[in-house]
C-alpha cells in the first residue's frame, strides 16, 4: 500500500514533465495551427544549451535557464519569421517545414557533438525528499512546479494582458483580429517564440536527469502529442490535465501491470477519451480555450 502513494507521486511528477513539454506545443498549435514537429528538437537544444553552460562556465542548469530560455525564444521567433511565415498560406508546407527543421537541428547537433552521450551530475540531481514514506525526486519536483507555474502564468498572461488577449483573438479569428488593429504576423512570431522558449525551459530542467543525445527530443514529444490530443488541441489547461492523465496512467500501468505494456495502456486510455469526447477533454468549452474555431 505504501507503494501506492509512491506510484501516485511518480505519476504526478511524470505528469508535470509531460505537461511542461506539451504547453508550448499546444500554444503553437492553438494560435498558429502548426503542428510543430520540431518542438522536441527545441527541447533538445535547451538540454544542450544547459549542458554547454554547465561544462564551459560551470553554470548550474537552473541558472542557465535565464540564458537558454530567452535564446530559444529568440531562435523560435527567427525560425518563424524566416521559415514559417513565407509559407503561411500553405499549412501543409508548414508542417513539412517543421519536419525539415527536426532533421536539420538533429543533424547539426549530431555533427557538432559527434553523437557522444553527455551527462551532468549536479549534487542537486541526487536529492530526494521523503514525505510520509513517499519519495519525490527534487529535480522532478521542480519540473512539476515549473509546469504549474508555466501553465498558470501562460493562462494569466493570455487572459489578463493586452498582448495575451491579442494572442487569443488571433487564435479565434485571425481576420477579425486584424480588423481590431492586431498585427497577426507579429503575434504568430511571438507565439512561436514563446512556444519554443517553453520547450527550451523543459529541456533545461530535464538536463540533470537524462543523458543527452541528439535524438532525445523525440522521446518526450511523442508523449506530448498524446497529451495535447487528449487534453484538447489548443487548450493550456488541457495540456496540464492531459499531462497528469498520461503521467498517472504510465506510472500505474508500469508498476501494476508491466513497464513494457504501459504505452499500450496509454493508447487504450487515449482512444477511450477520444471516443467519448472527440475534441479532447478541454477541446471546446471554456474561456481559457486558446481557440479551436475553423479559420476562414
Amino acid at each position, binding site marked *: 500500500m505504501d507503494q501506492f502513494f509512491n506510484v501516485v507521486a511518480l505519476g504526478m511528477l511524470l505528469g508535470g514533465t509531460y505537461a511542461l513539454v506539451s504547453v508550448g506545443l499546444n500554444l503553437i498549435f492553438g494560435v498558429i495551427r502548426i503542428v510543430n514537429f520540431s518542438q522536441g528538437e527545441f527541447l533538445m537544444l535547451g538540454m544542450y544549451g544547459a549542458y554547454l553552460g554547465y561544462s564551459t562556465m560551470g553554470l548550474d542548469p537552473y541558472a542557465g535557464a535565464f540564458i537558454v530560455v530567452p535564446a530559444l525564444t529568440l531562435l523560435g521567433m527567427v525560425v518563424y519569421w524566416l521559415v514559417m511565415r513565407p509559407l503561411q498560406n500553405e499549412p501543409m508546407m508548414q508542417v513539412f517545414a517543421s519536419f525539415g527543421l527536426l532533421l536539420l537541428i538533429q543533424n547539426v547537433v549530431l555533427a557538432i557533438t559527434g553523437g557522444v552521450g553527455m551527462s551532468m551530475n549536479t549534487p542537486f540531481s541526487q536529492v530526494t525528499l521523503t514525505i510520509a514514506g513517499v519519495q519525490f525526486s527534487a529535480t522532478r519536483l521542480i519540473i512539476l512546479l515549473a509546469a504549474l507555474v508555466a501553465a498558470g502564468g501562460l493562462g494569466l498572461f493570455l487572459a489578463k494582458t493586452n498582448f495575451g488577449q491579442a494572442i487569443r483573438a488571433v487564435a479565434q479569428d485571425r481576420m477579425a483580429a486584424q480588423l481590431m488593429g492586431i498585427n497577426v504576423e507579429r503575434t504568430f512570431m511571438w507565439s512561436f517564440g514563446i512556444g519554443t522558449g517553453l520547450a527550451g525551459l523543459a529541456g533545461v530542467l530535464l538536463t540533470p536527469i537524462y543523458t543527452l543525445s541528439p535524438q532525445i527530443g523525440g522521446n518526450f514529444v511523442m508523449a506530448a502529442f498524446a497529451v495535447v490530443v487528449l487534453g484538447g488541441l489548443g487548450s493550456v489547461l488541457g495540456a496540464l490535465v492531459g499531462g497528469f492523465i498520461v503521467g498517472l496512467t504510465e506510472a500505474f500501468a508500469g508498476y501494476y501491470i508491466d*513497464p513494457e505494456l504501459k504505452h499500450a495502456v496509454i493508447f487504450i486510455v487515449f482512444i477511450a477519451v477520444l471516443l467519448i469526447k472527440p475534441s479532447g477533454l478541454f477541446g471546446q468549452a471554456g474561456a481559457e480555450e486558446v481557440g479551436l474555431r475553423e479559420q476562414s
Partner: protein
Amino acid sequence: MKKFNGAGVLAVLVGAGWITVAAAQEGTIKIGAITPNTGGMAVLGNDLANWYELAADEINAKGGVLGKKVKIIRGDATNAQEAIAAVDKLATVDKVDIISGTIASFISQAASEAAVNYNKMYWETNALAVELTTRGLPNFLRTGPSAAYYAMQAADVSKGKVASVVGKPVNKLKIWVEHEDSNYGTSIATEVDRLMKAEGATVQIAGHKASAVDLTDSILRAQQANPDIFIISGYVVDTHLLLRTMRERNFKPAATILIGLGDSPDTLKAIGPEYLQGILIVTFPRQAINQKYAPGSDAVNKAYVDKYKVPSIGNAGINGYVGMQILFKAIEATKGDMSVSALMKAAKAMDMPIGSFTTGYGVKFDENMQNTRGQAVTYQWQGDSTKVVWPQEAALDGVSMIKLARP
C-alpha cells in the same frame, strides 16, 4: 606563364587516394571496411576503422601478408540502404578483395547479403546479433563475440564469482534481468535466463522501452523483488536513467551487472564514482587486463594513441583489430586465395588456443562460423576506472573483485 604539369597533378590525386592506380593492385590486399562514419554511431564506427588501419599498419611494417601490403578502404553506412550502396561501391569501384565491419547488426545484415552478390567474403568482427551467424549466409563469419557471449559471461561471472561474494550458493541466487525491449536486449536477457535457470537460480526478466521518459516503475518492481544480482542490458540513455533512478530510490542490490556498456568516462560523469563503485560491466576485453591473458594489449593501446593522438573511445575497436589479425592468418593459410570458399575453409581449419591474441581470444569456429573463443570479460568500477575482474586469469595481478554491496 607556368606550364601545366599533368604528371604532378596526377601524383597529387594518387596521393590523395582519388585515383586508384591499376598497377598497384597486384601487390595489395584491399579490405573494405563498412562502418557508420557519420550519424549517431560515428564515434564507434570511426574508432573501429581506425583499429583496422592500425592492424594493417603493423602487418605492413613487418612486410605485409605473403609479401603484399594490406590496405583498408573505408565505406560509410548508417543504415541498410547505405550499407548496400557502400558494398556496391567497394566491390565495383574500389575492387576490394574482402569486406569487413561493422558496428551495428542491421548494417551488417544488409551489407553481408549484398556482398554475396559480388561473391565477396564478409569478415564480421564486431556486430553482436546472434542471428547474423545463424542465417546460413555462405560468405559470413564472425571473429568477435555475439550477444550470446555477453550473456554467457554474465552467467559465468555470476556463478563463478559473484555468488561467493554475495555469500549464497548459486541455486539460491535471485537474479533480475532488466532489458530494453528490442531484439538486442531481449536476446541477452533470455539467454541469461536460460543459463542461470539451468544452474537452479531464480531468474526474472523484465523489459522496458529504451526511449522511456521514466523508468522508476521498473526500478520499483525490481526493488520489490529484492534480487541478489541486478543485470541491465540496455542502451546508453536508458542504462544511465536506470542507474540514476536506482541511486534516487536507494536501490542497492548486492551486485549490479551492466551489459555491453557503462565503462565509459561518460558513465562516470553521469553517475559519479561513489555510486559506480563495485558495479560490474560485461564487455569486450580492451584495457586494464592481464598481459598473460591478453598478450600485447597494453602495447597496442599505446600504439593507437601514438597513431591517432587520442585514446580509443569505443569499447569494441580492439576487438576489430584482433578480427583483422585473424583475417591475416586466414589469408596466409589460403596462400593468398581470397575466394569465399578458400577463406571459409581456412577459417574452419583454424584452431588457436585462448590467449593467442591481444584480447585474449583464440580461434575455433563453430558450425555457424561463430568464433567460440572470442570471449567477453567482466570489468568492475574501482575508484575512477574500470579493471578486469573476471575471468580470474584476465585480472591484473593484485586486482580482485571488491565488495559489491555499496554504501
